């Protein structure tokens, strides 16, 4: 294993020291591993809280700031944070208008956020709502399973809800909005290589030089199938086809086309993938009106990419375009 660290056991804690020092607009509670806006809580604004395992940087801390999240909880690498963290963070961002938990759909995250909400309800009278983000079409959606993973859709959900929260919308409105953006979004990912979890010290799965995984998760979970390595054009088809099969993205509204890097894939390749995906959308009559290209929801040092489509009506488009100032997304301020 080749990584810039001192001891895998301290990686997250020591990385948070760097986040704190490098970014004075953020605060870090090292005890509870909460990263939050320096100006939290914002009085009268609904507090937006997310988080999850570490190893997906810039998610989650890179999405904190005016126009997006108020705080996130950081777990160990690929391990959901714990209820105490979330309950404490809920207090930190409670500006009197309630707190919305934006939960990426993983069994661990959902259960821990559930327990946090129970704790918060027992300890304070803060109104808490939770919305689960589940956009990954690689996984079949079913009542009898853990359901779809939350992946790339978190970016438009958190950005758009963040903008709406700044406008002063209510907790219920924001929860509805989060569900709407989530419903409007679908993602699908692939890996050329496995990631290496520092505590394990070797790749999670072995992928021969001539094979790749289609339908992977963002925690080094192997994909739905392993296939021979293919060209970017063919890979784009393998990702776009299931997205369009799962939801209609044609019609009046345009889409956000988000080509996400898994961590070790250069921007040179991601832009090439963007062109391939956009060409397929052209053929399908789907119109990308906004773009995002880069490593936003990563899986440590995995090589690969995912594609997220999010349908944006006029309201959502305006909220996407609204000013935001986070480490990962910044414009208009």
């Amino acid at each position, binding site marked *: 294993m080749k990584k810039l660290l001192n001891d895998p056991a301290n990686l997250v804690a020591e990385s948070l020291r760097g986040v704190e020092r490098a970014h004075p607009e953020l605060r870090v509670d090292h005890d509870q591993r909460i990263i939050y806006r320096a100006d939290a809580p914002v009085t009268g604004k609904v507090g937006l809280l997310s988080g999850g*395992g570490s190893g997906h940087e810039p998610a989650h801390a890179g999405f904190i700031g005016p126009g997006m999240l108020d705080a996130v909880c950081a*777990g*160990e*690498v*690929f*391990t*959901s*944070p*714990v*209820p*105490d963290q979330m309950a404490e963070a809920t207090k930190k961002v409670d500006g009197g208008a309630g707190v919305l938990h934006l939960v990426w759909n*993983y*069994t*661990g995250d959902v*259960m*821990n956020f*559930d*327990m946090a909400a129970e704790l918060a309800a027992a300890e304070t009278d803060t109104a808490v709502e939770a919305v689960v983000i589940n956009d990954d079409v*690689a*996984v*079949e959606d079913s009542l*009898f*399973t*853990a359901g779809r*993973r939350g992946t790339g859709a978190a970016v438009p959900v958190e950005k758009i809800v963040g903008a709406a929260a700044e406008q002063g919308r209510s907790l219920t409105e924001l929860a509805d909005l989060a569900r709407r953006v989530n419903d409007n979004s679908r993602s699908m990912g692939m890996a050329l290589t496995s990631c290496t*979890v520092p*505590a*394990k010290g070797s790749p*999670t*799965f072995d992928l021969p030089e001539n094979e790749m995984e289609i339908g992977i*998760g963002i*925690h*080094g*979970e*192997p994909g*739905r*199938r392993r296939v021979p390595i293919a060209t970017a054009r063919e890979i784009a088809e393998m990702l776009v086809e299931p997205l369009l099969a799962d939801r209609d993205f044609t019609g009046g509204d345009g889409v956000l086309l988000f080509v996400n890097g898994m961590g070790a894939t250069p921007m040179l390749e991601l832009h090439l993938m963007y062109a391939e995906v956009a060409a397929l959308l052209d053929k399908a009559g789907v119109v990308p009106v906004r773009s995002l290209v880069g490593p936003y929801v990563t899986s440590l040092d995995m090589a690969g990419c995912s594609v997220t489509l999010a349908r944006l009506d006029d309201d959502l488009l305006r909220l996407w375009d609204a000013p935001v100032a986070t480490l990962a997304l910044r414009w208009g301020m």
Partner: protein
Amino acid sequence: MAAVDVDGLERWLRLFASSVAEQQDTLTALDAAIGDADHGANMNRGMTAVVDALAATPADDPAALLKQTGMVLVRSVGGASGPLYGTFFLRMAPATGGASALEPEVFAKALRAGVEGVVSRGKAELGDKTMYDALAPAVDALDAALGAGDPLADALRAASAAADQGRDATIPLVARKGRASYLGDRSADHQDPGATSAALLIAAAAAAVAEQGPP
């Protein structure tokens, strides 16, 4: 047949902690195959914290000890296993009825309450390829053996054998809960990591009570 007191429960937890430490790499390797390669680290972090808490804040009675253990797990583990194992111990606590030593039936009832806690938290059903597939046959075997008049040590040995069987039976299954469910059919032919740690939990209980010996 001796009841299980605070010392017995401590012995159980310490034995579980050491087998988790020993098996950490195995648990992680199982999780790498159908999950995210952290189950060993998760369980080891949690049980290390549990053992640390035993020394730092000794509990007076079984209920307090079980509650503390559950809280520590919930606070230190995260992921899916944290809330599940945490809830397991948190739900055991009230089922002890405040006794300072748990008679076999009470211990069995508490274990079952713990397992029901896992279900109410995680909504798993039998055959979903989770820790529940090891826990459910274990508490069933325990009740059956106690009902047949076996002493607790023997009954827990039977429970442990049943847990091992339940764990092994996860191998062919297609997962329907947890991270392994994302793999669909590819989750078959792999042993579930949580069922594996759960079998260690029951084995540790059997060993703890066996050590205690006859009264």
